[in-house]
């Protein structure tokens, strides 16, 4: 595992050649999300990552104000950048969970989980 980026709200690590691990921590603001979102896009593009494990297990509180950005702006750019599979571990915090549910796009690229291991297994099984 190689640490690629760290900030008070996110740690980004490379798990394998194709899997990027984004571990979000604590309360999130629209600024922290857009800033970290831009970093992820850049890393995905540069490293040609096809799979992302997006872990919200340690996120606390709602981030509803950043939902439109995530759903309508960030995900389309990620897909344009080569994203094929996105495993999203939702937070046990109800407010973070509800925000994530709202920001989850329809289709087959994103799948939600409540467990890191299950999410990783799903990603590994994908071609």
């Amino acid at each position: 595992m190689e640490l690629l980026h760290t900030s008070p709200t996110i740690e980004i690590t490379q798990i394998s050649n194709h899997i990027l691990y984004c571990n979000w921590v604590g309360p999130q603001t629209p600024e922290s999300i857009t800033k970290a979102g831009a970093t992820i896009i850049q890393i995905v593009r540069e490293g040609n990552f096809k799979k992302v494990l997006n872990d919200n297990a340690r996120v606390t509180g709602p981030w509803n104000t950043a939902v439109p950005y995530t759903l309508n702006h960030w995900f389309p750019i990620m897909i344009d950048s080569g994203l094929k599979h996105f495993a999203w571990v939702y937070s046990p915090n109800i407010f973070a969970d509800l925000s994530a549910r709202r920001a989850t796009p329809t289709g087959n690229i994103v799948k939600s989980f409540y467990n890191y291991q299950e999410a990783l297994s799903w990603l590994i099984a994908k071609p």
Partner: protein
Amino acid sequence: MSTPKFKYELQELENIIVIDLSTFIEDESRVDDWLIDDFKEALKRKTEKIKMNMQQSIIGYKDDTREEYIQYHQQAIIRLTVYLTTYGVPNPAPPSINNSGIELLSYHILLALEDLLSFVETRYARYFDPDTWLPQNYLSLTAAELHTELDNLHLNLLAIGVERDFAGIIMQPFWKFAVAQSNSGGTTYSHTSYLKHLKLELEKVIKNGATGNVTKTLHILLNGLNFNSPEYFTYCTKFIQQELKKAEGNDTDELYVLSRFYKYLHQVPVQLGAVLDPSRPALFDLLDEWLRAEREYIEMNIPAAMAVPSVQGVTAGFKILMAMTITQLSYFFHVLVQTGAILNKNKSMLTRFTAVIFQATTKDKMSDSNARKKLYAKNDGVRQAVRAVLVRCIQYIDADTGENDRK
């Protein structure tokens, strides 16, 4: 402390209240309209899941564990409701989404907890402990909930035409509850639940206030809810006395008035287990006893020689003497009407005619108040006496039939 022998079903809800709401405040988070809508939906899903889990879990427990399981969850719901006050007393009316929205979140959690408590109470009434004493915080919350628009409730009762005294009697338990909470506190779940239910039912009456007889509707409601305050009992008896006064001077009319109220009383179904003050007798019993005593008093004073309809060849003042008391005679005719032996439809006329034509006997011991009380306390004495007369009639017919056969 021993570990419970059962599953705790409220963990997810507890996490929301104890952890998520706390973090929400620490993080200085805010919500908006759609998040509130989603939150409501999520709470609904979670409470439905809890209900389903409880229904499934309880099947696997033995009876004594079931009781423990239900009362443990009953207490847990109350404890979580109290915990909500950590974030400020939740507003019992839907607050607006100003500031962070914490008030609105607490409000929806409060509704979810009430829904669960009501589910446990109604679904598992056998195991539910209605006499559980409630913590002061819970009572403050309930008091706040009951106080919401309490003044409006009073004004609205007056506005739909409820007499001032009557409205005051209805409102009295709510006011008493408020005073009790500001002083020593201490009341049971069943009492707070009763008041909440009464308030809801009164609001329904107010909503439909423009249609029908409001006073009659309220009496039916209060009788059905066993509203057994001394003030209401006195109000009812005064009301009946006023009606009796209109019929004063005519015993049969007075009996008719009493019969009418007796009929009303017996035709209103009383909600099982409902009682305003469990330390007092049920309203039904109080009124039933009062009506019986009043009826007996009038019956005892009916003059023996009432005017008899003129019939050719019959001596004036002639009456058929019956070996029954007036009550037994009334019941005897009631049986004949109910079984179709008497076809007259006008019961009022029939009652008057019976009183004029038949002379009932009044045994000496009937004047003894103890014996009277015993006889009227329940209808069994009357029923048994009438039954004995009818059995004697049948025995006579049977014997007569046997005699004829032998001839």
